[in-house]
């Protein structure tokens, strides 16, 4: 085997290995986005390129939270073809809290409970096709909940 064929077979093998996990990749946890300690890094990990502020995203959350360990939030997107809703707390040690992906008749709507380390903006990013839209809500946190 000369160098060229060896190289070719190596490339073929590597691409074979690279192809196999692609099928399951959609269900793999986005480590890069979730472990980033910066909002920018989390957005980069999610593939968000330039989000535009939108009034079509509604965030229902308390203005002031006594306990940062449990803050109930409701998010509604009225943007057509919403595929995903990501939630970030700007001052949490790892800002990305969750990314919800909707399909087959699921409404772009959710209620969940989150932790916030301190008073900060809660940021919501909506993915609709190739476009990204955002909305923010300021939440005062009396007692941080990210211990």
């Amino acid at each position, binding site marked *: 085997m000369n160098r060229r064929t060896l190289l070719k077979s190596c490339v073929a093998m590597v691409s074979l290995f690279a192809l196999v996990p692609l099928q399951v990749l959609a269900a793999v946890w986005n480590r890069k986005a*979730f472990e980033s300690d910066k909002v920018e890094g989390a957005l980069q990990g999610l593939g968000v390129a330039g989000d535009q502020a939108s009034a079509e995203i509604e965030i229902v959350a308390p203005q002031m939270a006594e306990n940062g360990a449990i803050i109930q939030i409701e998010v509604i997107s009225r943007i057509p073809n919403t595929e995903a809703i990501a939630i970030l707390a700007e001052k949490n040690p790892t800002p990305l*809290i969750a990314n919800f992906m909707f399909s*087959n008749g699921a*409404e772009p709507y959710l209620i969940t409970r989150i932790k916030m380390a301190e008073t900060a903006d809660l940021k919501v990013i909506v993915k609709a096709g190739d476009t990204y839209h955002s909305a923010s809500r300021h939440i005062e946190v009396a007692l941080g909940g990210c211990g």
Partner: protein
Amino acid sequence: MADMMKIRARLKDGVTEVKVLMIHPMETGRRIDDAGETVPAHFIQLVTATLNGKPVLEAQWGTGISKNPYLTFRLRGANLGDKIAVNWVDNKGATNAIEGIVEGA
């Protein structure tokens, strides 16, 4: 393990509201316990929901979801008696699932 999760799905005016409660510590990996030890991270990373076996919701979570996670989501096109299944996987590979039936309001 069914007591580790609760589900209720109610159909009203064409929209099915699904409420799910999961029992999980959701440890961030930054908490110090009473003995002064750092409690290792232990949290749900993936949540998937299906309607009659068809995926409707996939959520990826970090450590910022509260302990004993609560989730409400809404579906169009579900009928009374349809099956909704919700499943989670945590960072240690543990998993749990529950199935609910769409009920009338």
